[in-house]
């Protein structure tokens, strides 16, 4: 930690948050909000004179409220940067009439109440997301009595109690009587591996963390009685099984079964009722203290950052990697990498491994100092452009400019164009060509797909980042769906032109599905809003023409929703079976007449 503070090439921003990110791989423009510390980071020597005179006493968050701190404080003794901080909401005020004791106590004059929040703008080439975890909040698991009984602790609270730097200097005490407990029980999988409460995934570290705690306890107090209530012990890592065996050899009692109920006895001991799944009997244990092995949840900041960066999440709420096996630290968006528990629950060793991998992936990208951009951008045919400016209004990236003089054709700035193709789909004059996803290329795919037995087929448009990836995920998970589905990939659902859909129906498609990222998850800021609008418009048009609008469907499917993709395909097949040959031929007739009319 201290290496970070000292490193000449690391600029550390604490009390800071990212409030905005623009741009792309190679050149991201970021805005950092740095909140005022009210103590100079450079000057403060962490002598503690200020805290000694501060009259405000508050629970200490670092020790989870097991000790107290002042309104001017250091989070913990080894903190980096090694400077105190004022919690200005708790501070009585710097007016000498009210308090200002710390100002007087600080000989170096580091405390400055006139500091204000700062907004800092910077440019970077790559981003590593290492936003960590949130421990599970066990209050909803009322059967363990965490909110009702003082002697039921979380694993993190236990960590602070057994820590030599903690509030008791490492002496384990029972909160009700401050005496050393003679027996301690650990309950595993609190908030993990449960479909009912908490999360269904395994949090990966809690088994080993408990085993470690039992070893520490046995080292401090060899005669202490320890019981561990578990579903399975997952000691899969290098050297882990040895630790588990050591713990058992030291007499720790591992009991298979999670308690159903915890009650408090008059002497504040905990009575644990558990069905021992080895003996098949209901057993009762009276223990001095109970520790809940908390699972991990994604950090609260995940959602906001995900939207800012256009990233994807798994159904569990952790960040989704580009490929679970071959690109486990890359985000699908280029130039963004994951490290640590932001991507999934993991222990320190795995976090460190992934962080080093993420650093190397970032270096691999940046080392030449140059970046190649995808040529999948749109271009405007000046002959056809009527300078209506619709594309200028649509482009999520403001990459299109309208001529200053009236009726000068619009121009695409290819460096700013991200290639969603929404402009090409919306242009009323067909003046925009979307490179690599041109009208002709896509229409050719539709034509050849529907050339034979069109009535049997389901035409699906899927966006590269979410729904196409969701279809891939269905494959990786071997989820089976009807084999008559034919997928056409576009970069964004915003590219799916009205023409493509009518071309599909004209060629005899019974049903058409347009699919894209969920609202707010669009890889192209909010281009899928246009998809939604367009599909609504087309369905109205279909109704007017006498084509059943239900035959056109719109669905949002994320990259992690393989099962949702498969379900939707089954639903589409259901829908297709209800479209008769006669209905299809009628539609073809209607659309042919329509074509003739527009030609005349």
């Amino acid at each position, binding site marked *: 930690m201290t290496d970070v503070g000292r490193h000449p090439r690391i600029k550390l921003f604490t009390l800071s948050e990212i409030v905005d990110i623009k741009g792309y791989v*190679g050149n991201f423009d970021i805005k950092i909000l740095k909140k005022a510390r009210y103590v100079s980071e450079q000057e403060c020597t962490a002598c503690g004179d200020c805290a000694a005179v501060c009259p405000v006493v508050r629970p200490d968050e670092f020790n989870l409220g097991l000790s107290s701190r002042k309104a001017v404080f250091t989070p913990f003794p080894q903190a980096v940067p090694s400077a105190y901080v004022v919690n200005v909401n708790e501070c009585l005020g710097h007016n000498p009439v009210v308090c200002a004791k710390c100002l007087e106590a600080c000989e170096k004059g580091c405390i400055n109440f006139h500091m204000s929040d700062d907004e800092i703008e*910077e440019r970077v080439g790559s981003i590593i997301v290492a936003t960590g975890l949130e421990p599970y909040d066990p209050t909803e698991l009322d059967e363990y009595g965490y909110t009702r009984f003082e002697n039921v602790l979380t694993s993190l609270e236990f960590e602070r109690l057994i820590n030599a730097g903690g509030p008791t200097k490492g002496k384990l005490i029972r909160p009700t009587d401050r005496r050393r407990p003679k027996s301690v029980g650990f309950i595993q999988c609190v908030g993990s591996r449960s479909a009912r409460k908490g999360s269904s995934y395994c949090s990966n570290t809690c088994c080993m963390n408990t085993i470690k705690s039992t070893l520490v306890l046995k080292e401090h107090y060899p005669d202490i009685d320890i019981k561990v209530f578990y579903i399975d012990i997952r000691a899969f890592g290098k050297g882990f099984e040895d630790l588990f065996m050591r713990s058992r050899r030291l007499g720790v009692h591992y009991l298979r079964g999670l308690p159903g109920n915890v009650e408090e006895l008059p002497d504040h001991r905990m009575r644990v009722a558990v069905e021992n799944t080895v003996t098949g009997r209901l057993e009762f244990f009276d223990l001095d203290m109970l520790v809940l092995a908390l699972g991990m949840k994604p950090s609260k900041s995940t959602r906001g950052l995900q939207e800012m960066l256009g990233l994807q999440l798994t159904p569990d709420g952790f960040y989704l990697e580009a490929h679970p096996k071959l690109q486990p630290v890359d985000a699908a968006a280029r130039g963004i990498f994951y490290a640590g528990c932001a991507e999934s629950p993991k222990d320190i060793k795995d*976090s460190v491994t992934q*962080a080093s991998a993420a650093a190397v992936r970032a270096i691999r990208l940046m080392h030449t100092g140059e970046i190649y951009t995808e040529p999948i951008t749109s271009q405007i045919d000046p002959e056809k452009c009527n300078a209506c400016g619709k594309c200028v209004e649509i482009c999520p990236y403001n990459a299109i400019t309208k001529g200053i003089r009236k009726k000068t054709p619009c121009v695409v700035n290819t460096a700013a164009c991200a290639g969603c193709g929404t402009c090409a789909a919306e242009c009323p004059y067909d003046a925009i*060509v979307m490179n690599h996803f041109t009208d002709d290329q896509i229409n*050719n795919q539709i034509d*050849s797909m529907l050339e034979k037995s069109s009535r049997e087929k389901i035409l699906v448009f899927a966006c590269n980042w979410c729904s196409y990836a969701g279809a*891939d995920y269905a494959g990786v998970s071997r989820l089976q769906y009807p084999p008559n589905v034919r997928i056409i990939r576009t970069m964004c659902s915003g590219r799916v032109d009205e023409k493509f859909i009518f071309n599909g129906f004209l060629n005899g498609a019974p049903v058409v599905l347009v699919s894209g990222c969920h609202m707010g998850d669009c890889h192209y800021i909010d281009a899928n809003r246009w998809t939604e609008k367009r599909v609504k418009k087309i369905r109205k048009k279909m109704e007017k023409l006498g084509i059943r609008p239900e035959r056109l469907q719109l669905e949002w499917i994320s990259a992690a929703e393989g099962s949702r993709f498969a379900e939707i395909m089954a639903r589409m097949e259901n829908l297709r079976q209800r479209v008769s040959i006669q209905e299809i031929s009628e539609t073809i007739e209607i659309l042919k007449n329509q074509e003739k009319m527009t030609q005349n």
Partner: protein
Amino acid sequence: MEPAPSINTKPQMRIGVYVCHCGSNIAQTVNCSKVSDTASRLKDVVISKDIAYACSEPGQQEILQDIEEHDLERIVVASCSPRLHEPTFRQMMKSAGLNPYLLEMANLREQCSWVHLNEPDAATQKAEDLVKMAVSRARLLQPLEQEKLPLTKRSLVIGGGIAGIQASLDLADNGYEVLLVEKNASIGGTMAQLDKTFPTMDCSI
């Protein structure tokens, strides 16, 4: 960017189609030789083959050799998802002196063999369709050029827990500037709150 040149005007376009078995991943469900046979009769396809592993070194060599021998201009690889191996095959195109955007892929694994495991006939039919669609698209592909832009050699690390710290140090020690952003008053994250840590049973800080 200049408007892309019009579609190839040669009398006949020369397309090569490669249907990958992916070991048994595709071949156990999809009849790959039948798919490649059907593809060989498509317009502008001058060569069509099924191949054990298209992405492997021998697989790529075989395609490269064919490009040379048969003067192929466009390639259709029917294998796994383009999200996985499109960069691989684009690189192969480049090494053959072809524009990488004249490659088209048909997704026969993630979106065909793996999702229709018990319907080999229907899956083969689908594979034939997917290859036909890919060839029809390949016929209209146009060469595109990537643009080179300057890059900022700095990294932003969001979060100062153990992962953020390690990533920052690795980057900085390799000579890159790092901005490390942490929402709390100190770095250290959850790890700093732990006492001893497994498997070494030593202090966390």
